[in-house]
């Protein structure tokens, strides 16, 4: 039964997040933008405490486990809404400040990878730390200096087995929250490395590297166009030894024929869950922009008259109505992809599709809003120019717009990566 009724639980979460966004994020947004590398500890501590209380954490839906406990492990037929709730949460926090949202403790991409590919034992060992007394960060390191989009096929970081340890060597760049995961808190980074350079993608595995591991070192913090509240780190792994059990997925390279599958599947499973969240994040910025644009126009006597044929609208009205159309349609697609995830149905196409459109839409909306507002939009007195800078990252990370188009295209055309690349 098709329905667009927002469940009460989501309404509640949304109201809560809105309070956080308005009171803890917006007031410090500009300051963090102007003081790159400053860490928003107040926000971090607050989110850690409140997430612990709610049982949810970062990018992994929390309601499943909690519910089971409450209902004595009994299976109940109530539809799951964990991923949908997350999408709403991420959208609202990014409406507050996207850089700060990326500083939310308790599970970003690294935790999502463990959640998607880890054994129950690994999940226990790596994920329970998020429920501890202190906030903890995680990160995911796939990109290397020579390649981003081409990953994981061109991973050069090497993992060599030595008894009951793996020895990692290589360099990772652009690791979101890498510093917070390895240096500022007792977190971990999921590092993608190859156990067999001859095997191509089949040899690539994610490994968990914990804070304090000798040989894992943050060597650089990037200075960026936007999302400056979020640290983007380079990590050098030099004879970095980790326990054998820290490999996610099988330790052997499966026969060459099946080679594309195993290790790679893990990454894909992760992205199906995280891409829609990046889309949701992008749309949070887009909504913030559109709201402020309308507010500023209204203050100057311009209200949008909905319903008119295009020939009767002013240019500003047409632009705003188009923006609203893109925003709403993309949001619904994002929500659908998370609904599919909650229903445990395949969502690869939708996950990449909403990421493509959200990346486009947030870039277009922020660019147009500045254009329409002239010097007001361009001024650092308002956050619009910041959102314009923040927006662009959504077209880049979690697969660029082009890479996600490729994924959608391959799926609808039923092509392998050899046929379409």
């Amino acid at each position, binding site marked *: 039964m098709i329905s667009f009724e927002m469940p009460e639980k989501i309404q509640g979460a949304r109201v809560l997040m809105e309070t956080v966004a308005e009171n803890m994020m917006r007031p410090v947004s500009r300051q963090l933008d102007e003081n790159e590398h400053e860490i928003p500890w107040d926000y971090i501590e607050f989110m850690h405490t409140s997430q612990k209380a709610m049982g949810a954490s970062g990018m992994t839906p929390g309601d499943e486990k909690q519910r089971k406990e409450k209902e004595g492990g009994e299976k109940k037929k109530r539809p799951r809404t964990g991923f949908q709730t997350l999408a709403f949460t991420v959208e609202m926090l990014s409406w507050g400040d996207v850089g700060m949202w990326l500083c939310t403790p308790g599970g970003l991409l690294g935790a999502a990878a463990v959640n998607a590919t880890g054994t129950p034992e690994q999940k226990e060992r790596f994920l329970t730390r998020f429920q501890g007394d202190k906030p903890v960060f995680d990160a995911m390191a796939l990109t290397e200096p020579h390649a981003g989009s081409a990953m994981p096929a061109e991973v050069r970081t090497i993992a060599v087995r030595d008894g009951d340890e793996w020895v990692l060597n290589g360099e990772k760049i652009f690791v979101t929250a890498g510093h917070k995961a390895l240096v500022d808190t007792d977190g971990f980074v999921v590092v993608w490395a190859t156990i067999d350079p001859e095997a191509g993608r089949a040899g690539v595995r994610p490994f968990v590297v914990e804070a304090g591991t000798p040989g894992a070192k943050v060597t650089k913090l990037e200075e960026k166009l936007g999302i400056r509240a979020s640290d983007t780190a380079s990590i050098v792994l030099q004879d970095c030894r980790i326990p054998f059990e820290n490999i996610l997925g099988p330790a052997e390279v499966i026969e060459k024929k099946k080679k594309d599958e195993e290790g790679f599947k893990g990454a894909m499973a992760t992205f199906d869950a995280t891409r829609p969240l990046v889309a949701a994040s992008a749309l949070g910025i887009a909504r913030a922009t559109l709201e402020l644009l309308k507010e500023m126009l209204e203050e100057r006597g311009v209200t949008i008259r909905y319903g008119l044929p295009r020939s009767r609208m002013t240019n500003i009205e047409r632009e705003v109505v188009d923006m609203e159309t893109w925003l709403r349609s993309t949001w619904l*697609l994002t929500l659908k992809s998370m609904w599919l995830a909650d229903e445990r149905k395949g969502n690869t196409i939708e996950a990449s599709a909403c990421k493509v459109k959200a990346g486009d839409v947030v870039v277009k909306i922020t660019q147009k809003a500045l254009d329409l507002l002239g010097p007001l939009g361009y001024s650092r007195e308002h956050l619009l120019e910041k959102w314009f800078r923040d927006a662009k990252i959504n077209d880049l990370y979690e697969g660029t717009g082009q890479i996600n188009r490729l994924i959608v295209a391959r799926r609808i055309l039923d092509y392998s990566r050899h046929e379409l690349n």
Partner: protein
Amino acid sequence: MYSFEPNDEQKMLIDAVTRYAENDLRPSAREAEESGELPGNLIKKGWELGVLQASVPEEYGGFGEHSAVTGVLAAEAMAWGDLAGTLAVMAPSTYVMPILIGGTQEQKEKLIAPVIEAEWKPYVGAYIEPNYDFYPLEMRTKAVRKNGSYVINGEKTFVPFANAAPSLLVFADLEGTTQAFVVPADAEGLTVGEREKWLGVNALPTYSLKFDDLEVPAENRIGGDEGFDPAAIFASANTAIASMAIGVSQAALDYALPYAKEREVWGVPIAQKQSIAFMLAEMAIEIESNRLLVWEAAWKLDQGNDAAREAYLALNGTSDTAMMTTDRAVQILGGYGYIREYPVELWMRNGRGIAAFAGLAMV
């Protein structure tokens, strides 16, 4: 709870409509477009699928309950086959729906059953006006009160089957609000103009209308003395056409995609070139995201909420989607896309009309 899955009944209806679209509408579409005539039995068969009847309660001769969601699901599936044929089959919706939504109990009982219980007959609405800036909530056709009746003056365009309509539902401005009046075909002061010619949907016979001091009794006003709120009708009209725009867009994608896999250039299918593959991916993305706008608008209509904004965004988005996808389908077929032996040029012509068609169907 959010859900993006039609229920079982809706799925069955979609299946039946899809079969009709594929086996009946699509094969007749080209010939109908060129000759300007839809085979009579084609419309009859489409009518018998009961899409409109399923949205009318039993007490008024139907066999279901009013559901805009079911309506848009069916309309999309049908428009995938052919837009002109769909507009013909659904033409009586522009007469029935305003009465169902805005009519008095008596009007519903009296006026709906003869349309719904019978074979397809072109009871149709006269809604669109011949102006570049036509806006349904500010009609130029005027109705004024005169001694217990209404007198209508003005012009309409794009009235399907007006020459054969037993009765028309004429939309006109009454004291600043759009209202609707039942006008029998033989009413004095009603002139049916020449058959109109368009860029597309030429299989649908449409006519201009003129009203010169056309007088109708007060009881012919939908909603009686109080009238009705035109916002819901406006939203319904926008939503209905938006769903058909998605049908047309999906048709374009479904045609261009296999073509691109088959057509080769320098030894590889053109679909293996990113510029083609990305176009297809973007078509799919636009179609799915805008389809959800239509569903949301329809769902809101069914909740009895004000759906004006959603319906408006849906029409805005799907109108662009239809133009984009049909244009690209022509592009992907290359020179063949331009040839009338292939359907995509017709869809491109139909696609451009979406925003102008609002008012030709209601859900």
